[in-house]
Structure formats: structure tokens, C-alpha cells
């Protein structure tokens, strides 16, 4: 509780400083609107119904792309991390595609999939796939062989080894990859929405920028930050709920 109070102090101080800087005309408030103005813009956008639609659309895209990209990344990473033949075939392909910055694919995605959901989900998928693949590949291929030996010598059957030993042993590495991918998913999503969309948080940031509606633009930027923060905390919460041992292992290292 005390820590919470301390942490809030920093944020409240930042807000007050921001408000004062704008109010005292140190910086043109037209260009750097005070938080009160940004908040009132957010309120009126919420009341008009536009903002909830944008948030819903963006969150749906982020979640869909993240879930699909993670599943694919986990699967390909696990298979190529453990099975030689797949490693030989898949890993070079992944390594060739991986260095392509996903932002560079934004225009291509619009050409291929249009402005709708498919292009956004594809881009988030692409952005999430590689870091998850890397963490899954490394996590699975570098499982401490002692775990496998220990399990085998207390009688586990080969087919149970995957679920009982290899996957849980790789989980800490995989979780780190997944968590990185969450922020990446939002970065990619905003870039994709800014480039072309019908609605969404990134779309509004770009549209309001072009017509100099800086308070609304900042409102959506702040909102984007809040969404990223909430997503990260939610993930951390779910991980700790589902895997109580995870936090213990991390603290120990």
C-alpha cells in the first residue's frame, strides 16, 4: 500500500508539472495541451461513442494477432527446438524472414489484405511470431539436460517428457518472450492503424495529427499507453495466478 502511494506520487507529480507548464504558457498550450484539456477531450470522445469503438477494435486486433502469433511461434519454436529435421528445415526460413522489420511490411499488408482486420491481425501476428519463436526455440532447445535425466531416472515415459518436463522447464524463457511481444503487438498495431484503417486508436492518432487536433491526438496517445500498461499487468497477473512458481524462480535468479 505504501509502495502504491509512492508510485502514484511520481505520476501525480508529473501530471501537475505538465498542467503547470501548459497553464503558465511556458509552452504554447495549443501545441502542448494541459492534462485537464486532454482528459476533457477523452471524456467527450467517450461520450460520443467513438472512443469505445476505437478501443474495442484495437484491443480485438491486438489480442487476435497476439494469440495467433504466439500459438504459431510457440509451436514452430518448440518443434524446431527439439526435432532435428524440423530445425534444419524451418530455422533457416525463420532466420531469413526475422530481420525484416515488421513496420516495413505495413504497406504490403495493405496491398495484400486491404484496410480491414486481416491486415492488422497479419501484422501483429508477424510482429509477435518471431520473438515468441526465438524464446520458444531457445527455451525448448536449451532445457537443462539434467531435468530430462532426472525425470527419466525416476521413471517417466518418453511421451510424457514433453508436457511434464520440457515445456515447464522452457516456460520462464517463453514467458519473457511473450511479455516482450505484448508491447511489440501494440507498437505494430499502432503503426498499422496509422498507415490505413477505418477506425482504431492508431488511426485516430494519425487523423487528428493531420488536422492539428492535438488535444485529441494526445488523448489517444495517452490511451495507447494505458492499454499497453493494462495489457502488461494483466499478463503478469495471469502468469502469477497460473504459475505460482514462476515468480519464485525469477526472484531466485
Amino acid at each position: 500500500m505504501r509502495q502504491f502511494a509512492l508510485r502514484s506520487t511520481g505520476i501525480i507529480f508529473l501530471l501537475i508539472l505538465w498542467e503547470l507548464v501548459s497553464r503558465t504558457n511556458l509552452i504554447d498550450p495549443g501545441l502542448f495541451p494541459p492534462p485537464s484539456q486532454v482528459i476533457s477531450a477523452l471524456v467527450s470522445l467517450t461520450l460520443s461513442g467513438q472512443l469505445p469503438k476505437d478501443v474495442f477494435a484495437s484491443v480485438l486486433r491486438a489480442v487476435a494477432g497476439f494469440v495467433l502469433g504466439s500459438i504459431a511461434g510457440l509451436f514452430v519454436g518448440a518443434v524446431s527446438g527439439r526435432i532435428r529435421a524440423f530445425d534444419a528445415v524451418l530455422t533457416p526460413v525463420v532466420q531469413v524472414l526475422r530481420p525484416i522489420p515488421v513496420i516495413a511490411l505495413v504497406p504490403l499488408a495493405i496491398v495484400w489484405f486491404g484496410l480491414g482486420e486481416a491486415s492488422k491481425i497479419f501484422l501483429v501476428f508477424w510482429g509477435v511470431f518471431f520473438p515468441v519463436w526465438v524464446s520458444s526455440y531457445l527455451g525448448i532447445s536449451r532445457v537443462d539436460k539434467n531435468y530430462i535425466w532426472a525425470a527419466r531416472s525416476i521413471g517417466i515415459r518418453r511421451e510424457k517428457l514433453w508436457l511434464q518436463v520440457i515445456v515447464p522447464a522452457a516456460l520462464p524463457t517463453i514467458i519473457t518472450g511473450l511479455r516482450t511481444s505484448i508491447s511489440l503487438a501494440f507498437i505494430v498495431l499502432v503503426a498499422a492503424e496509422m498507415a490505413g484503417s477505418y477506425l482504431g486508436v492508431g488511426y485516430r492518432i494519425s487523423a487528428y495529427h493531420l488536422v492539428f487536433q492535438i488535444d485529441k491526438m494526445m488523448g489517444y496517445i495517452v490511451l495507447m499507453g494505458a492499454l499497453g500498461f493494462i495489457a502488461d499487468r494483466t499478463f503478469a497477473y495471469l502468469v502469477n495466478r497460473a504459475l505460482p512458481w514462476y515468480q519464485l524462480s525469477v526472484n531466485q535468479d
Partner: protein
Amino acid sequence: MVFRNFKLMLGILILVLVVSGCGRVSEEESRVTLGQGMGVLNAPIFVTNKMNFWESQSLQVNVRPFVAGRLALDSLIAGDIDIATIGDTPVVYGLFKHPNLRIIATVMESNRDEKVIARRDAGIDSPDDLKGKRIGVFFGTAGEYYAIRFIEAQGLSKEDVSFINLKAPDMVAALSNGSIDAYVSWEPHVQNGLRALGDNAVVFVNPDIYTETWNLVTTVEFFNNSPETVRRVLRAVVRGVEYTNANRKEAIDITEEQLGLSRDVLDSIWDDYDFKVVLSENLVTTLKNQGEWIQASSDLSKGKSLPDYRQVIIDQPLREILPVAVSIP
């Protein structure tokens, strides 16, 4: 002998020094960074660059291209560039937040540059069919203003269609893959759309709703610091416009190189553009009309009155260089 030769040499040396020295004083080089919005309407600047008319004004010009004048404006505001060619709409928008923007000359006027292009297979054969359609528009550009005026001229309102913000070059792809039913833009983007869609495309032009001006824009600060540079830029651009008008074929060749539109296409639309260096009442009027439109349609000017658009125009340098070009009091 030796002595006489020495005096001669000394004389020549002094003469050379004086001449070159004088030259340096009056013809000192200025550097200027120029942002250009890409479009057929920028042809005179393409010509000025290619023919390097800057050089005879002792200007060293660093040219930076932008997809749209609207984006060049961001750089101008940020101080990355000194002067930019921009349509009128972005300037009107920008003035609400940045009152230091100034127009020093119009270099082109056109009422046929902006167009609507639509897919026939989206059920659009006439402008009235746009009702309920998804229309790509580059927000903050003249295209947006034209789109609104166009829709209104059909007796429709903004709510009757859905405008989707898109960067001009992305519109072609979006229309091709059916993400949007139509878009509004300037050239070369409508011609590119025609090329991509072929017979499936239909183009609408309404010349009676808006005459766009393409302007040289700077900031108060740059003008006050470098009035002479601004005058030299104007002189070079005047030459560029004269050349453009006197050498249609060459000007088209240069524009083709910049925009990738074929000569034939450029030739067919070339007469839609009136290349001239002017400062006219039309500019003040169009700025004012758009200011009122923005005031009515957004809360950008909340609590503020519209600026005096006459004061946004700096006419003195052009008045000195080409008095006939200035028709505002």
C-alpha cells in the same frame, strides 16, 4: 624589365582580388532547405530544381520531397526546412496552432487537380452514388476540403458518406483491393488509380467548387532573418514558372521524371494547371472560406476568432521583384 613586369603582375593581382572580393560581397551564397509537396502542381519547382535556376541567384538549395504539402508543413513548423510548397488547406489548419506561418507567393492555381475516383463495381456511376460509400481522403490536405465541397455540392453531408483517412499513395492500393469504394486526391494519384483500375474506374471532377492554390510558405522567423534569401528564392521560382510555361515539352519531361506519370497522361492534364507567380485576392478568399469551414466543423478554433488572413501573406518581396503579380492591396 623585371621591375616593370613585377608592377604589371602586382596590378593584375590587385585587380583580381578586388573583383573577386566585390563579387563575394554582393553574391554571397545562401543556403536554404526547401520542402516540396509531390504533385503535378509542383511542376515549376521541379523545373527550377532541374534547371538549377537557384544557382544564378547564388542559392544553394537542399530539396526535400514530401508525399504531401501537409507533411512538408510539419517539417516547416519543426524548423527542419525553411520554405515549403504547400496547398492552402494545410496552411489554414496550421495557422490555428502556428500563427507564425506566412505565404510569400502562389505558384499555381487549379480547379481541376483534385478529383474523385471510384470503382464502378462498387455501384458508383455518378456522383450521387457516393452516398453511403467509403471514401479515402488524406485528412488535412486540400483533398479533404475538396471532398467536403464535392459531397455538399451533391446535396449530401459529411454524415452521408464515411471518409477514411489515408495517405495519398496508399489510396490506389486500397481502392484496388476494394478496401474503399472511392477516393479523393490530387495528381498523380488519380491517374495512378485509373491505370490500376482501367475500365472499372470512374472519375468525377467539379471545377466550380474550389480553386486550389499552391504556395511558397515560410515562417515569420525565417523571413525576418533572411529576407534577401526569400527574395532570391522568389526570383528563381519566377524563372522556373516562366520556363515551365515557355517550354511545355521540357517541363513535362522533368515532371514525368519526378512523378512517374507518362508524358501522354501529363500532356492530357497539363492545361488543368495555371502555373503563375501571383498574390491575388483569390488566395485571401480561399483561406478565409476554409477558415470558416474549419471553425464550423471542428473545435480547433474554440474560443478564438479567425486570423486576419491578409496578414498571413507577405507581399513586399514579390511586389519588389514582379509588381504586376501582386493584385492585393
